């Protein structure tokens, strides 16, 4: 069974198309890398998977996760909350609640399964608190549990976001650049944790990565977006340097202006002058 099924997904923001008819499928238990240049639509695609952004109205447009509809024709499914509880989403910008403690931020991961009468007054059980601390321990932040989220360093905040997703005990994990702000060792540990829960528990993992080396090391398959379209979809081994050069290089020529203008620098009027 496929864990994720996306069909004919289109999305534009104020007229500008960002996703241009994406159709992909991800098998249960896969660990998939989602790559593409900055602004190619990776985060937007991820947000569609958990139904936080709704697609443009389209007759064939459909997103299914774990066999349940998330959105269809640009309308959210009615039982979307129950599906979301089974999807862990690590946001690129972390989306922590700055004023709450690190531990509470992690405990929020459990909201999908804690009854409302306990969650609203914040009556988490000792077992849940212990679980939160263990998730924090797994990302190396056990001692920061009682700090306010806003006082953490960038990499620490990122790891809190990961701990929150772990706390959720989800069946699908969407990790949007989970190691962007992490040092090599922390990165390795986070990727290994993702790999382990993928291998040992069969959890489906989609991870957005800018460092292709990590994708090669931990994932078997990759999907590459370019300019809102699926540019590559296949085994990671097929991602050779030429493909990558086209993916990142050419994308800039079409989707955005070249970082280095193709014209000779002098003629372009851009020059580095003394200040």
């Amino acid at each position, binding site marked *: 069974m496929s864990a994720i099924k996306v069909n004919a997904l289109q999305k534009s923001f104020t007229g500008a198309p960002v996703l241009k008819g994406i159709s992909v499928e991800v098998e249960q238990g896969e660990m998939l890398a989602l790559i593409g240049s900055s602004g190619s639509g990776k985060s937007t695609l991820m947000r569609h998977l*958990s139904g*936080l952004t709704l697609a443009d109205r389209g007759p064939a447009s459909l997103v299914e996760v774990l066999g349940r509809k998330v959105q269809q024709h640009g309308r959210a499914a009615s039982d979307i*909350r*129950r*599906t*979301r*509880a*089974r*999807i*862990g*989403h690590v*946001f690129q*910008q*972390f*989306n*922590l*609640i*700055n*004023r*709450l403690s690190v531990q*509470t931020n992690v405990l*929020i*991961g*459990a*909201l*999908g399964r804690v009854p*409302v009468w306990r*969650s*609203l007054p914040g009556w988490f059980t000792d077992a849940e608190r212990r679980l939160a601390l263990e998730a924090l321990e797994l990302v190396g932040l056990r001692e920061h549990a009682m700090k306010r989220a806003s006082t953490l360093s960038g990499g620490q905040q990122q790891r809190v*976001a990961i701990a*929150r997703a772990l706390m*959720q005990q989800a069946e699908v994990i969407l990790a949007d650049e989970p190691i962007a702000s992490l040092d090599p060792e922390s990165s390795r540990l986070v990727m290994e944790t993702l790999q382990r829960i993928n291998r040992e528990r069969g959890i489906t993992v989609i991870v957005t990565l800018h460092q292709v080396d990590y994708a090669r090391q931990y994932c078997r398959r990759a999907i590459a977006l370019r300019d809102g379209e699926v540019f590559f979809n296949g085994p990671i081994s097929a991602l050779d340097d030429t493909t990558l050069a086209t993916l990142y290089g050419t994308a800039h020529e079409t989707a955005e202006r070249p970082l280095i203008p193709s014209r000779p620098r002098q003629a*372009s*009027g*851009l*020059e*580095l*002058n003394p*200040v």
Partner: protein
Amino acid sequence: MIQSTATNTPVARKPFNWLAALGWAVLFLLLGWGWEGAEIDPLLLIREGGSMLEFAADFFPPDFSDIGYYLEEMLVTLHIALWGTVLSILLSIPFGLLSAENLTPVWVHQPVRRLMDATRAINEMVFAMLFVVAVGLGPFAGVLALFVHTTGVLAKLFSEAVEAIDPRPVEGVRATGANPLEEIVYGVIPQVLPLWISYSLYRFESNVRSATVVGMVGAGGIGVILWESIRGFQFQQTCAVMLVIIACVTLTDLLSQQLRKAFI
């Protein structure tokens, strides 16, 4: 470190905003019209400043001979204002959330906003009379009248704070499969709490000052004394009462600052 040598790069500017320009034009027209309508003449203030000073001098020195009585009435006021405010906070939380555009669909927040508009717009005196008829004269009628009006104000202020929050933390909570109540408790409330505290204490403070309703229904209190002393031309007593109120407002303000600090 980058510096332009060519000048042919087109310069991007925001397109001229006709709507905004129109808005400003209307505002200035209204102000010009109102200058006439409100008979504004700033020079008068300067020319006649002397009589202002003369009048202000009547307030000094403050006459504290009845201070015990003032403090007693302050207590009555506190009772009434406290209950009026606490009840209205309890109601403003749901109404404020329901009238926030970013939390509820249009067919919920529009009617709720209009209801709140009405409770603010209807004169407190009318509510006071309405409640007098049911519960009789006395502080309870005052509490109820303050409560209704304050609910209208706080619900509006609460909801507009909610509309200005950062949506990302809320999405973070939503993505865990939390239900809307949990989104609010974990994603919205922590962001707006400092502002909500400040609004609540501001309304408490203005309920302490409000003499009209409370005086109307015969509930007494410091505001009524102030009013009476002004109407009795006892300006030195007025001054003493005002100092008591200023002290109370200052205390509330300091409390507000401390409470908010714990949440910012």
